[in-house]
């Protein structure tokens, strides 16, 4: 791969070649990923956001909880890059720490539903029969509840804060994964070779693990990228409603709520946290689209 071709799937020249050098040459998936513009763009945007969140303890300029009642609602300046809020706290620092919480919660919370949903969906799609019908009804029931309504109610019932968020999502979010994985499993199960494997005497867990799961889990992963967006949206919404992480800990949602009374004079207090969510959403969506392209079976 010395000269970069001008046309063809490998166009994009030096950039692609350089990336190839960094990436394991022999693995076909990684090579394909390196050429997918959507994936790279999404991963970059997301990477920047995650990096900022991770580095929060080092790049914030003031402790996010530190109030300064003599300097409330300050305009952006060298001192305070984004000004201060109604309690004199530095907005930039709070933004970083809010991102830290919201992003981390988003990524961690989604793990439980993926696991539960994949397991249940695979079992339902594989064994079929009445457990499958029952599962489909359960999924219908959960999906009948408007998304936020059920989450809000559950958080209310179980208790606010992180614990409530985890439980609420664990109980509601698994359904879409179960549904997706179930239909994938049904499709894969119908293919000739899996029946052949079964006929060959392979035990069920082995078939599930080696043959079925790798095919169905890619669907779940692609959906997960959108789901994380929904989860972050819900976490932020809960924060706005006062049902999320409790004050004074910063969260993009509660920051938007705090800034609402000052929309006319300090509009950025509410607008910028929202923009952070939007940007994260763009990154995740691009990543999801790219992954879908790369993982699609040829």
């Amino acid at each position, binding site marked *: 791969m010395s000269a970069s071709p001008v*046309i*063809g*799937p490998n*166009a994009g020249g030096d950039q692609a070649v350089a990336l190839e050098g960094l990436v394991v040459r022999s693995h076909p998936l990684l090579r394909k990923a390196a050429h997918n513009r959507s994936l790279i763009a999404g991963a970059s945007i997301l990477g920047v956001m995650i990096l900022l969140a991770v580095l929060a303890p080092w790049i914030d300029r003031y402790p996010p909880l530190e109030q300064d009642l003599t300097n409330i609602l300050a305009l952006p300046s060298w001192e305070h890059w984004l000004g201060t809020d109604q309690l004199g706290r530095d907005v930039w620092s709070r933004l970083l720490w809010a991102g830290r919480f919201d992003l981390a919660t988003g990524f961690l919370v989604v793990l439980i539903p993926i696991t539960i949903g994949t397991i249940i969906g695979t079992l339902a799609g594989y064994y079929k029969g009445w457990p499958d019908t029952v599962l489909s009804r359960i999924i219908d029931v959960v999906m009948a509840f408007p998304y936020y309504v059920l989450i809000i109610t559950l958080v209310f019932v179980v208790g606010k804060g992180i614990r409530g968020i985890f439980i609420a999502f664990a109980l509601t979010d698994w359904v879409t994964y179960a549904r997706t994985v179930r239909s994938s499993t049904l499709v894969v199960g119908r293919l000739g070779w899996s029946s052949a494997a079964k006929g060959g005497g392979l035990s069920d867990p082995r078939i599930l693990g080696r043959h079925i799961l790798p095919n169905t889990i890619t669907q779940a992963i692609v959906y997960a990228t959108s789901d994380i967006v929904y989860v972050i949206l819900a976490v932020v919404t809960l924060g706005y409603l006062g049902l999320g992480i409790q004050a004074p800990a910063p969260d993009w949602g509660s920051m938007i709520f705090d800034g609402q009374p000052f929309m006319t004079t300090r509009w950025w207090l509410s607008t910028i946290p929202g923009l952070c969510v939007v940007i994260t959403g763009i990154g995740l969506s691009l990543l999801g689209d790219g992954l879908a392209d790369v993982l699609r079976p040829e």
Partner: protein
Amino acid sequence: MSDPALRVDGLVVEVTRDHERFRAVDGVSLAVERGRSIGLVGESGCGKSLTLRAIMGLLPDRAAAVEGRVTAVGAELPLAGKGVAAARRGRLGMIFQDPGTGLDPVMTCGYQIAEAPRRVLGMSRAQADERALELLRLVGIPDVERRMRSYPYELSGGTRQRVMIAIALSSEPKVLLCDEPTTALDVTIQAQILRLLVDLQEEMGLSIVFVTHELALVGELCEDVCVMYAGRLVETGRTADLLARPLHPYTIGLLRSAVDLDAEVTAPVPIPGSLPDPLNRPSGCAFHPRCFLARPACETADVALAPAGPGRASACLYVEELMTRGLGAGVP
């Protein structure tokens, strides 16, 4: 000699795939006389469907006709742009391969057949419905009153294909382009549809271009035939003559690979290899990697259709050899 019903000169269709452009149809020319049929034969992917679609002005997004002239019933038809559909109204009609997907699923057959007479020919509702009934009878569908109110999903494959033909005829074209209309059907139904097309040709003086990958079918319907390979024509001629005396190794290969129930006990011999990737076209004659007659010159020479006797043309460099050796000789 009167004008041919349809005449195509030097048609070139470019297709874009994965950011690269290639010629899926590379300089195809053909002519169909009034009331006669021509077959266009080749393996899947050789460009024959695209040829028909280009003639009809129905190319999919990734393809574009970049060169060529199409004339039908005395008028030159634009290949792209605003006047494409208008020019073909009343001149060309087309039927497609899969009647399952070729009919609008949410409308009754009667509506679909009557639509063109109403909207294109300007008939009244009653007249158009009458016409639809006539057409249903013409294509040999029993119980026409009920069929008018049926939905496509209620019909069998063969009936659906007849409805498609009725729809194509509803705008009163002079030339009917058929894109593998029998491929998706049962063998017995195939024969019926072919029979129908022959009858329609006789009764209505319709000219037909019949695209298929089965050389055997062409013998039933078409007086002339063209053989296509990798976007170019490799042989043309009167059907009876061509089938008896093929003058191109590819045609010979096609004949040998077909299952012929009437023939002697000879097992079909498939042509080795497969169609070339259009992005990686072999140099010289595109068929040479699979050809039993291949010589060094085949790799470099610029091959084209050349006359090979009365009413015949072939693109093989060694056509004289084929003329003398005949079908059976020298084939491995």
